[in-house]
């Protein structure tokens, strides 16, 4: 597609349930990033994939969070045993390489609400 696609756009889940958020990057973009945007907070880096290299997981807030990227394309962010503090907008972005001259292209995000 022409842009970064994220699904679902909205997700309401009960505390303690697991959720999976999907990101379809722009074709040919080797770098893929996940960020979290909480109400009143700036964007917070979560995880970064670059080609076939091991992902940089340094931003994941706890071991309940994990992500994978299959075939260098689609990525899934999984949150296990969700907590109310996980409520936020989860944004995925992709780029040809790094942030560079053209920045990232972001998706519209998944708004996660944990009740």
């Amino acid at each position, binding site marked *: 597609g022409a842009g*970064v696609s994220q699904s679902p756009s909205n997700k309401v889940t009960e505390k303690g349930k697991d959720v999976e958020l999907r990101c379809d990057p722009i074709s040919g973009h080797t*770098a893929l*990033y996940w*960020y979290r945007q909480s109400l*009143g*907070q*700036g*964007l*917070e*880096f979560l995880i*970064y994939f*670059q080609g076939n290299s091991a992902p*940089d997981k340094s*931003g994941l807030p706890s071991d309940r969070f994990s992500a994978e990227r299959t075939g260098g394309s689609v990525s899934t962010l999984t949150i296990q045993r969700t907590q109310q503090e996980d409520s936020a907008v989860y*944004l995925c*972005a992709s*780029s040809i*390489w*790094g*942030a*560079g*001259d*053209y*920045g*990232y*292209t*972001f*998706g*519209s*995000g998944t708004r996660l609400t944990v009740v």
Partner: protein
Amino acid sequence: EDQVTQSPEALRLQEGESSSLNCSYTVSGLRGLFWYRQDPGKGPEFLFTLYSAGEEKEKERLKATLTKKESFLHITAPKPEDSATYLCAVEVGSSNTGKLIFGQGTTLQVKP
């Protein structure tokens, strides 16, 4: 600790009233400074990358400038469609990872 601070948090302008948004940063080794625009319910949209002090970039009514401590986003004769949240971010470190540290943003409202 690397930090990015944007001011003001919110700005209301009349159409045609020029102003500037500030992004100050304290980082160890700036690789690049980025400006994004975010409309409600959407992901941020890339505007500019600045790499070194003294650099300037322009796009329509927007001009971004960079010094060793801060960046400004100047908005000349804004229109209502310029209303959005403007985000500043920095890339730091020795390798080209593209990991960004974002400020909290300035929400701009331009009234007709």
